[in-house]
């Protein structure tokens, strides 16, 4: 199905199922422990052996020797594959750190061996008996501030329009500050895990915890140098990803090589303490943001320059991603840099770019509002744009950011007169409120599905994954709605490379793309049925096919169709994005500087909400991640050693139950006919965007102390708090 023009009136506009609250159809399996995750697939293949990985313990350099004699002699050990046994493996899609093979070490905890043994305990014990000699590479510079100084002003701007210098010279108010965001780690609850059967070197089957079946299948083919058609991947349940499981990772490669070497299926999970340095993460950023405004509050100039780090050829974290598109400004200069550093690979983590960018930009907006003595809600409204600010000929498909701010402010009880910083108190706690805008692009990907009536059920098959996002449920809703069936009539099967290729889960494009793909497949099924029965445009309702005198049950048939959604060029005439406003109240302890969030509210504009239950969960989950990003999450870099020190869940503090207060989510009742046939956009990343800055702004309102370096921990403000 080609999506070649804006969606007109569709069956979703009178929906009975899509857009309605429905609990997760996979819920009963998950709450009873019956949903099988990758490492748990005893059912799929006999004779599984255990693989345990070994990580390099230098930041970069060379493995000069590995002695595996003692490990090989250890009880239960069947074989060991070391990186020196294998030619450097080719890089998978969009990855720049070698997963295995060869003597080069590119980062700490890069996989350098896997021990295959009969039991987990045996494999783990033997891994520590491997002796490794290294030659450490030349000392490296991990100073991102220095990198910013060095790179600032260099290169062609990514976005440049208007006379920026004049704008800053002639402005009524100017702000100019540096902002820092730390490295962040996905730390999904299910570790990276794979069972791979490549016993005979022929067909390879992998049961992998992975977000992107088709990408990973392709990357595995490239990495192992085999034909993609020989690879089958299953990933029906994924215990969280947040972008970390977009890629082929070492667990799969080690399981594959181990399986090949030992001639039996092998299962490998990355130990939690190895995950942070072995896998990908969100780069730290150093950002300079200058804003210039007219006295009426309209922005005269935006200057945003960012540096992050990455391995050669890598992408870093483009914290300027939102800046050319979010706010209207007379002039703009935006530039993103990446400094090369021998650190673990930096890649996508939930809302890559915007998450880190809005942590800074939305503080800057608060600072400018204060400089102008304007309500920060009003200031953002004044600078709304219905067109792409950096390309005014390109309108937004649908943008209701102002409504987000207004509805959110009203529901939250926002005080536009802004009590002075430090003026509200509840016992020992200084109380403050903050707001931030949220922006995240609305991407789409081609997405296919098979829809079939089989054995009295509507079966939907697609390689789409459900990483907690609610895919099972919204795809069932879409299929049921389109075919005039009930939810109980639909059997959704996901995460299998035998099924049609979907968008996969990432970039907030999964829900919109995969539901469109299922819609396309169901519409193709309807056409097929009409054609088979010789009917002209039959109706599908209440489980029946209706046309003239014909009235027959749909589920008695046996029929199938395979179709994809393809996205037409007309969409490029528009800028598409999702919007939100976050409102937060915090308490900052006047004595200790501890910050606790007291309540949170998000108002979101993301087109049709396919299921308010699962969509709300996505947003509150993003808000929780935003609390962690604001207050505690930081990958602690040892700049002498080039490794992240706090590499476990005790050292890297994500938010816990006690950190999270009452949360309210409002979805605007918007439809975006340019976004997709369902007039829907994604919402999975929007919930995170801007949250941390809203907290930072609330902390400023509480204390009068402006922190610009995340996480916003008490040590950064203790010397500025009033004497006690």
């Amino acid at each position: 199905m080609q999506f070649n023009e804006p969606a007109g009136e569709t069956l979703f506009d009178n929906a009975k199922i899509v857009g309605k609250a429905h609990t997760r159809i996979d819920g009963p399996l998950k709450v009873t422990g019956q949903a099988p995750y990758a490492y748990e697939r005893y059912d799929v293949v006999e004779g599984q052996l255990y693989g345990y990985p070994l990580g390099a313990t230098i930041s970069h350099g060379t493995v000069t020797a590995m002695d595996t004699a003692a490990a090989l002699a250890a009880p239960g050990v069947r074989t060991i594959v070391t990186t020196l046994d294998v030619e450097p493996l080719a890089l998978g899609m969009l990855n720049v750190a070698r997963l295995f093979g060869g003597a080069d070490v590119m980062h700490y905890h890069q996989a350098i061996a896997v021990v295959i043994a009969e039991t987990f305990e045996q494999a783990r014990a033997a891994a520590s008996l491997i002796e490794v000699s290294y030659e450490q590479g030349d000392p490296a510079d991990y100073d991102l501030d220095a990198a910013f100084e060095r790179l600032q002003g260099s290169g062609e701007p990514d976005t440049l329009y208007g006379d920026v210098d004049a704008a800053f010279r002639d402005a009524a108010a100017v702000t100019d500050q540096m902002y820092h965001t730390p490295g962040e780690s996905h730390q999904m609850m299910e570790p990276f895990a794979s069972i791979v059967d490549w016993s005979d070197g022929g067909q390879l089957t992998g049961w992998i915890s992975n977000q992107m079946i088709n990408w990973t299948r392709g990357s595995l083919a490239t990495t192992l140098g085999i034909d993609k058609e020989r690879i089958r991947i299953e990933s029906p349940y994924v215990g969280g990803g947040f972008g970390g499981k977009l890629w082929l990772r070492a667990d799969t490669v080690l399981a594959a090589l181990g399986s090949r070497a030992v001639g039996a299926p092998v299962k490998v999970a990355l130990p939690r303490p190895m995950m942070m340095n072995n896998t990908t993460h969100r780069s730290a950023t150093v950002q300079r943001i200058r804003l210039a405004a007219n006295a009426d509050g309209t922005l005269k100039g935006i200057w945003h320059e960012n540096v992050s780090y990455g391995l050669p050829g890598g992408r870093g974290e483009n914290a300027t991603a939102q800046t050319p598109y979010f706010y209207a400004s007379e002039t703009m200069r935006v530039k993103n840099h990446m400094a090369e550093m021998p650190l673990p690979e930096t890649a996508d983590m939930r809302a890559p770019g915007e998450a880190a960018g809005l942590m800074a930009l939305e503080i800057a907006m608060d600072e400018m509002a204060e400089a102008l003595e304007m309500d920060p809600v009003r200031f953002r409204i004044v600078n709304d744009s219905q067109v792409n600010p950096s390309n005014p000929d390109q309108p937004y498909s649908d943008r209701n950011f102002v409504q987000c701010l207004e509805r959110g402010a009203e529901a939250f009880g926002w005080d536009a007169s802004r009590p002075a910083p430090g003026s509200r108190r509840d016992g020992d706690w200084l109380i403050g409120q903050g707001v931030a805008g949220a922006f995240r692009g609305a991407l789409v990907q081609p997405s296919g599905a098979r829809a079939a009536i089989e054995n009295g059920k509507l079966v939907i098959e697609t390689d789409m994954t459900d990483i907690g996002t609610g895919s099972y449920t919204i795809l069932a809703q879409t299929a049921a709605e389109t075919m005039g069936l009930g939810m109980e009539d639909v059997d959704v099967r996901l995460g299998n490379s035998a099924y049609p290729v979907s968008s996969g889960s990432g970039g907030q494009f999964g829900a919109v793309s995969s539901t469109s793909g299922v819609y396309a497949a169901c519409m193709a099924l309807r056409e097929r049925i009409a054609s088979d029965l010789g009917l002209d445009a039959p109706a599908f309702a209440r489980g029946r096919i209706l046309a003239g005198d014909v009235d027959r049950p749909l589920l008695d048939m046996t029929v199938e169709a395979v179709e994809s959604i393809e996205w037409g060029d007309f969409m490029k005439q528009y800028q598409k994005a999702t919007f939100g406003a976050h409102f937060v109240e915090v308490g900052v302890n006047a004595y200790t500087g501890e910050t606790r969030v007291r309540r949170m509210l998000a108002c979101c504009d993301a087109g049709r909400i396919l299921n308010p239950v699962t969509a709300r969960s996505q947003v509150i989950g993003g808000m929780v991640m935003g609390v962690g990003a604001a207050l505690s999450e930081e990958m602690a870099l040892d700049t002498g050693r080039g490794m992240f020190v706090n590499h476990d869940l005790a050292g890297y503090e994500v938010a816990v139950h006690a950190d999270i207060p009452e949360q309210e989510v409002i979805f605007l009742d918007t439809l975006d006919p340019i976004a997709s046939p369902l007039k829907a956009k994604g919402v999975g990343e929007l919930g995170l965007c801007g949250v941390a800055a809203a907290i930072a702004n609330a902390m400023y309102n509480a204390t009068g102390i402006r922190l610009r370096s995340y996480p916003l921990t008490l040590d950064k403000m203790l010397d500025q708090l009033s004497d006690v």
Partner: protein
Amino acid sequence: MSPAINFELRRRTFIAGTAVAAVTVGMSRKAAAQTAAPVGAESTTVFLTVNGEGRELTVDNRTTLLDALREHLQLTGTKKGCDHGQCGACTCTVNGTRVNSCLSLAVMHDGDEVETIEGIGAPDAMDPMQTAFVENDGFQCGYCTPGQIQSARAVLDEIRAGIPSHVTDDLTAEITITDAEIRERMSGNICRCGAYANILAAITQVAEDQA
């Protein structure tokens, strides 16, 4: 505010020149390994009652209760999130008390009664807490969920048993079930998907139904 004392910062050293120095890791461990050896059997037969069913198992002494459940009994509802007591995904009930099964050896549980998520309810016969988690969307990816549910049930019991928590105001009064008590007591179960507010709603629903 200036510190109460004058102090000197502790001196730091530079890491010795690294470019030419070869580093070997593992040798010292091997040397240590040779100094002592086990003095008895390295595996043990234990008898557990799991979800009401007697199970005899011969396990490597190193096998945790978690791995005994997952890898030996193939009861994979109890999850391995961190294997170090830092996430709570492995929470299950031993002799009526919730514990981190990753930080307990199977060999130490001979004769014990273990209850896992599989013993609490099944998809077609869910426990009220499981139902409440579904109804309140108290999970997303589902991986921490069995541990959350185990803790959720235990938390209500622990409050009723009068066990105080970090947020209990009056240590000598009866403890009431409040949002703050539930949040604090659930904090050993991390949910990276961030379903905390919905989990609280689920637990509150069950607590009110039981009241």
